[in-house]
């Protein structure tokens, strides 16, 4: 009985952790589908770099950059005029030999961190990045503390004294009558 009380929440924790571990895998099909969508809209875009490797880089980078007009699409997925312009900028600058970091810096200097789908890790975003881990481990720690306290409380209250134990045994064996002041007596 006592074991059961402890095991059930533990099972819940294990389940939560399993779920958390499963989340990245669940997100992958979604990412694949947006990539497909991006490729589809890229078909509509007039300009494509002749070099396939360069175009692949352009596409990869474009998926990491947010369109400022649509806000919930990357510049690879969006066909807003600004997204087309920014895609052209990315293509032009990569073609001229600048690195991906240079191109990202170029856009961040003009549009801010907002243009990045993945916010950079810095002081202001520490809570954003650390928050989920903080909640998970904080919650788990709190749960463990609670369970420890409860089981020690149960140990303290549920234990029977030697006389109580003998009396219980006698009651079960039918050798004694329940006392009249018992709360369970149906007189």
């Amino acid at each position, binding site marked *: 009985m006592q074991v059961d009380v402890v095991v059930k929440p533990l099972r819940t924790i294990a389940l939560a952790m399993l779920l958390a571990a499963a989340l990245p895998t669940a997100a992958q099909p979604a990412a694949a589908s947006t990539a497909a969508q991006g490729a589809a809209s890229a078909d509509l875009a007039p300009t494509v770099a002749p070099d396939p490797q360069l175009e692949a880089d352009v596409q990869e980078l474009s998926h990491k950059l947010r369109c400022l*007009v649509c806000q919930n699409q990357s510049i690879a997925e969006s066909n807003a*005029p*600004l997204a087309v312009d920014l895609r052209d*900028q990315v293509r032009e600058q990569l073609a001229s030999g600048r690195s991906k970091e240079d191109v990202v810096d170029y856009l961040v*200097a003009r549009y*801010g*961190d907002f243009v990045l789908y993945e916010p950079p890790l810095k002081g202001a975003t520490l809570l954003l990045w650390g928050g989920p881990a903080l909640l998970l481990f904080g919650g788990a720690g709190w749960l463990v503390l609670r369970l420890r306290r409860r089981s020690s409380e149960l140990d303290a209250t549920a234990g029977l004294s030697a006389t109580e134990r003998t009396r219980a045994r006698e009651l079960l064996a039918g050798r004694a009558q329940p006392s009249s002041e018992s709360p369970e007596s149906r007189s």
Partner: protein
Amino acid sequence: MKAKFLVPLLLFFGLAGFLAFGLTLNPREVPSPLIDKPAPNFKLARIDDPASTFALEEMRGQVWLLNVWASWCVACRQEHPLLVRMARQKLVPVVGLNYKEVRGDGALNVRGMALEAETALAVERARGWLSDHGDPYVLSVLDVDGRVGIDFGVYGVPETFLIDAEGRIRYKHIGPITPDSLQQVIMPKVEELRRAG
């Protein structure tokens, strides 16, 4: 620890407070990283005289506004009367940056159009619009391909930049200027910069 039952309630109020504050923010207004940085320099053809150019440093020593506009921009039409009124009252010099006049217009198909032809069409359209609605600008320049717009971090028209005497961007107004934003935000900042400069 008797008030323990209040904890969820307090958590709720905390969360509700954050959400209520979030409702007052406009997600369309992306803060510009260019504030207090030197305005990106440019040299572009003037609409009144496309053969000559205007460069940003020509406004050095003045506190001025750079207003991004286009004839296809509906919200520009909304703020334009205010700009005209500002010009009449000589509140603050405003330079117009005409943004993608031709290729920004979704109604036009300009694929394969030569740059000269596009520039000529842009000049014609911009001049026509200014003579129809009034020209509040000290002068307007043509950003045919929107490249200067990108340098300024423009992501929608209209946008207005407040630039100080040393050529630094001090404030960015996103969307049409309203009488309220002019009186309560822009003009106080202009006065402050003038006093400082």
